[in-house]
């Protein structure tokens, strides 16, 4: 077909084609390995959870109000862990969503170029700090600070863990929201200005509605991140399962329960060992649901223009 290829002997051409296919196959296998990881995760969690649900009926798991798998009088109700997860996540979102959204609007609609160039990497560092360091900060800096305002606050509390977690996930909200806001075409803004609207009016009534699905995706993905966060809560919120919605109390989340059990020494195959997989499976399903919703929203904002 080309003069250059005809320089090669048929044998060399064949070898070359084989090599090309072999390389493609190797690269394909590498890509497929990511599917194997997922299969491994789902397989292990499902297998061990199956063992767990042989002992504990699903109804008890979902409705029992106590989680005491390691006591003599064992109860296996996931609710206390769910409320702990819920409270810390809600506090974190109450911090991260307003701050992250305001930052995103400010950086994309108002900030001068230089401010943006400096602020974005610094903000990204917020999510680069190891979570164990945030845990230390929550326990030994934020909690004592809060105790000056609320003297009755115990040494471990969901409030302090949630607040710090909220700061930690600001970049998740702000950077993805900003991407969505940047993707809104300039003409929409200009149309709004032409009608005499102010910058703020344009941002709130034109830009944000146009970028809504992207901004919503940012919220949902931040939520998934907060649900799966472990170390901040494990260090600052205590690890005792506690069925309460009061943020001033210590409590365990799904993740901290797994940490607590892992720190001890449970024999492989025991029901105590299986509980962490049942808890982990619940966590995986929760975050997976959030991620799928988040990705659907994200795809919608990508297609809009």
């Amino acid at each position, binding site marked *: 077909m*080309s003069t*250059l290829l005809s320089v090669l002997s048929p044998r060399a051409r064949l070898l070359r084609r084989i*090599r*090309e296919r072999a390389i*493609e196959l190797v*690269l*394909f296998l*590498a*890509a497929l*390995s*990511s599917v194997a990881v997922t299969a*491994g*995760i789902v397989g*292990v*969690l499902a297998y*061990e959870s199956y063992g767990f649900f042989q002992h504990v009926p699903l109804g008890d798991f979902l409705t029992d109000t106590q989680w005491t798998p390691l006591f003599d009088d064992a109860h296996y109700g996931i609710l206390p862990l769910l409320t702990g997860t819920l409270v810390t996540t809600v506090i974190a979102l109450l911090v991260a969503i307003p*701050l*992250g959204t*305001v*930052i995103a*609007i*400010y950086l994309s609609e*108002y900030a001068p170029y230089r401010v943006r160039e400096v602020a974005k*990497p*610094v*903000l*990204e*560092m917020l999510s*680069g*700090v*190891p*979570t*164990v360091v945030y845990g*230390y*900060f929550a326990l*030994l*800096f934020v909690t004592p600070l809060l105790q000056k305002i609320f003297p009755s606050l115990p040494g471990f509390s969901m409030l302090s863990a949630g607040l710090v977690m909220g*700061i930690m996930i*600001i970049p998740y909200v702000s950077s993805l929201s900003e991407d969505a806001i940047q993707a809104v075409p300039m003409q929409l803004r200009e149309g709004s200005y032409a009608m005499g609207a*102010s910058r*703020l*009016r344009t941002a709130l009534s034109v830009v944000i509605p146009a970028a809504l699905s992207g901004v919503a995706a940012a919220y949902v*993905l931040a939520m998934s991140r907060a*649900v*799966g966060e*472990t*170390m901040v809560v494990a*260090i600052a919120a205590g690890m005792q399962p506690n069925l309460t919605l009061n943020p001033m109390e210590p409590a365990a989340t799904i993740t901290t329960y*797994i*940490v607590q059990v*892992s720190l001890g020494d449970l024999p*492989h195959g025991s029901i105590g060992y299986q509980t962490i*997989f049942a808890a*982990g499976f619940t966590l*995986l399903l929760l*975050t*997976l649901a959030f*991620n799928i919703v*988040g*990705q659907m929203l994200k795809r919608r904002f990508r297609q809009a223009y």
Partner: protein
Amino acid sequence: MRSVQQIIARNKLADGIFVVLGLLALFIGIATLLALIVDLALHGAPRLSWQFFTSFPSRFAAKAGILSAWVGTCMVMLVTAACAVPLGIAAGTYLEEYAPKNWVTDIIEINIANLAGVPSIVYGLMALGLFIYQFNLGQTVLTAGLTLGLLILPMVIIATREAVRAIPRNIREAVYALGGTQWQSIRDHVLPYSMGGILTGVIIAMSRAIGESAPIITIGALTFIAFLPPAPLQATPPFVSFEWLTSPYTVMPIQMFNWVSRPQEAFHVNAAAAGLVLLLMTLLMNGIAIYLRYRFRKRIKW
């Protein structure tokens, strides 16, 4: 006329208020970061000494150090990089350069997007069930490295894809025009040109892995390790030993977690010092990555 001016004044005021609000929100984020760094530095910096870096953990806070922790972190990171980097670059390259548009590709892509959102502790559970109890790898450097490697694999794949996608189509066509094969275009052109972006992504992913504690706790890292894994390089033939792979270990975040969880004040000081070292490591890596990204973005003009 007057009312128009009033409206303009009111709008300007609203804009001004929002700018203040935006700066305030930014300030809260940045001030927290600063407070965290200053707090760690105030408590931890006095503890940083040669002794702290060269001592094993101890029952006595003043004698304890992070020798086994930082050596362990370096070794685990070696395994992590060896696992995630080649696999991630290969997978990313396949998806951008070879993958046909079909359901297999769709599954792989959806799968990677979801893997990136799986909480790190779930990787730990997977490793506990699979690496420790199925493959019997034990609580070793190898297990920890592989676990963290799989954890950052999606990040490396995504970074590779973005970097490779940025290379213009005509570079590849130029190679084909000269009779080169697809692999030659990738090996000699696409990958070298996208190395900057890939490197940035890899460094950020590694800085994430260095700070990870949850999955390591799940696979049962020991916190009291008063010895070092065998050295990878030996004085006697065959000079290279892989015994360190199967050695028990501890890593920086685990050591810090252990010290934070103790009630004594003196151990909290150690925790602050360890946290400071860990923070400097990750911030340094992030800084390098941001600098690299900035440089490559400026330099490349197609």
